[in-house]
């Protein structure tokens, strides 16, 4: 499970250069693209937290709504109690985690396809609560007037400082998610995915671990939702429909869900691609759809598998070992 510690100096240099590039990026972008960069950063957290949920082999359709739970929590906390962002973000995650914990009891009685449908139904129920309870959640027009926080005299309405802030939050969350995946807990989640019965036979309580992945994944996407609403200033039920959920799925699948960084590549590449075909106007959805089909047909393991393929075409490095044909 551990990454090899080779070339640590080289890795550090690459890391520093990448970070510097990231920090410099917003200064070269238009205002519109700065907005997009912030949402991209937040979506990175959405896809990475979703990956944690899928580690046990269960794909849910409720992740987008969990992001909404975090978003509504922030809107309510800011509007009613005027809480600072240091409190609202962890509370947004906690609220999403709590909702997930309650939903574990009905939802985790199901697996596979039934879990997928069940999670969709539960998600819609939550989303319609926001629509119907107008007094609390503001109905279809949602909650407005979530003022951008001012931290240490810096106004987060300005995209550049808010990008830095959300980048820091997202990187911290990604670090934690990475640590979980590469720990004992992550190994157990993988084990449940590949052979649940075998894991149980050596004492793994599969239900508890599936619940854990679901709750922790929801916690982090709740934070992502909170980050989004602090910047946008308003929240509506339409931001977290199943079509946003489908985008999360597409990003994860196109990026490749076998590696931690796969979904990150997916969301970054597809967001940039989508933006770069903006000038095609009406053709844009068709081009985007065609790209998706092509990438799934030709890269079933996702964009993450591209470097390995190129290497093997040019004979660089050793190809993956062939499985033995027979046991004799």
């Amino acid at each position: 499970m551990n990454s090899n510690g080779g070339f640590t100096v080289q890795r550090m240099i690459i890391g520093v250069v990448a970070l510097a590039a990231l920090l410099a990026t917003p200064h070269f972008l238009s205002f519109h693209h700065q907005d997009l960069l912030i949402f991209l950063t937040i979506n990175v957290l959405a896809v990475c937290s979703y990956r944690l949920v899928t580690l046990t082999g269960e794909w849910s359709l409720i992740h987008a709504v969990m992001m909404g739970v975090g978003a509504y929590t922030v809107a309510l906390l800011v509007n009613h109690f005027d809480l600072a962002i240091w409190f609202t973000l962890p509370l947004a995650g906690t609220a999403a985690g709590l909702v997930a914990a309650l939903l574990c009891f009905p939802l985790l009685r199901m697996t596979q396809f039934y879990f997928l449908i069940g999670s969709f139904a539960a998600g819609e129920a939550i989303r319609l609560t926001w629509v119907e309870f107008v007094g609390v959640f503001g109905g279809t027009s949602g909650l407005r007037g979530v003022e951008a926080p001012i931290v240490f005299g810096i106004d987060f309405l300005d995209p550049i400082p808010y990008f830095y802030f959300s980048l820091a939050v997202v990187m911290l969350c990604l670090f934690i998610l990475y640590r979980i995946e590469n720990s004992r807990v992550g190994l157990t989640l993988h084990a449940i995915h590949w052979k649940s019965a075998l894991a149980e036979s050596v004492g793994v309580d599969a239900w508890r671990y599936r619940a854990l992945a679901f709750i922790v994944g929801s916690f982090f996407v709740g934070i992502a939702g909170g980050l989004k609403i602090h910047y946008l200033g308003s929240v509506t039920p339409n931001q977290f429909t199943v079509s946003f959920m489908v985008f999360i799925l597409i990003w994860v699948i196109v990026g490749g869900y076998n590696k931690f960084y796969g979904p990150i590549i997916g969301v970054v590449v597809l967001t940039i691609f989508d933006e770069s075909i903006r000038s095609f106007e009406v053709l844009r959805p068709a081009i985007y759809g065609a790209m998706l089909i092509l990438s799934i047909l030709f890269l079933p393991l996702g964009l993450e598998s591209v470097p390995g393929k190129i290497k093997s075409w040019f004979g660089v490095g050793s190809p993956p070992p062939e499985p033995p044909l027979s046991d004799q």
Partner: protein
Amino acid sequence: MAILEINNVSKQFGGLTALDNVSFQVEEGEIRGLIGPNGAGKSTMFKNIAGFQVPTKGSISYQGQSIEGKKPHTIAEMGIVRTFQETTLFQELSVFENALVGTHIRARSNVFSAVLGLDRLQQEAASEKVMEVLEFMGLIERKDQLASELPLGSQRALALSIALVSEPKVMLMDEPFAGMNGEETSHMMDLTRKVRESGITVVLVEHDMKAVMGLCNYLTVLNFGQVLAHGTPEEVRNNDKVIEAYLGGAK
């Protein structure tokens, strides 16, 4: 006192009776064989003991404690671990990681200590235990290979290793010799003896009569869900009812 006691266990699936009033005891430290023709209920018996199925009637007790109806992970924690028919492994994980999953009971961690690295000592101890068992099972050179890349004999040895690192008191082995050639079978027999010598009680379901007769000190024969005979391999071999069940009455 017997370490495992099966008392009048019945298991029905709708109208089908898979186990019918089965009783037997397993003494600590023995290698017990559970044999019988196909469909006799041997695997069903295992699933009921290990908690993957709940008996319709009867009781199962382990070290004097009733365990029927408990969940598989709870039973595993109490000290009964099963292996599976065929090669049930985490195919996509390495040999080392496969065995590491087996250390769950003693090395489990929570999210907080995993993130903060507070479980390091515990995990190091688990890795040491895994290396020790892989050495014992002759898999140490293959520890970084994927489980799916191993030849059959090594896959079975790995399945045994996963069970072994969990430090069970009773090991239920479901057809560990199926599909093996002569050399692999005798290697597996040695391994099974070593497991018993390390203080683990073994119950095994097996069709390979040579292996069963060579390994077990006591046999329980099932037929159509009922206990047909008990005895030492010698007694069972000469039991008329057993011969009839296996050969269909041709005497």
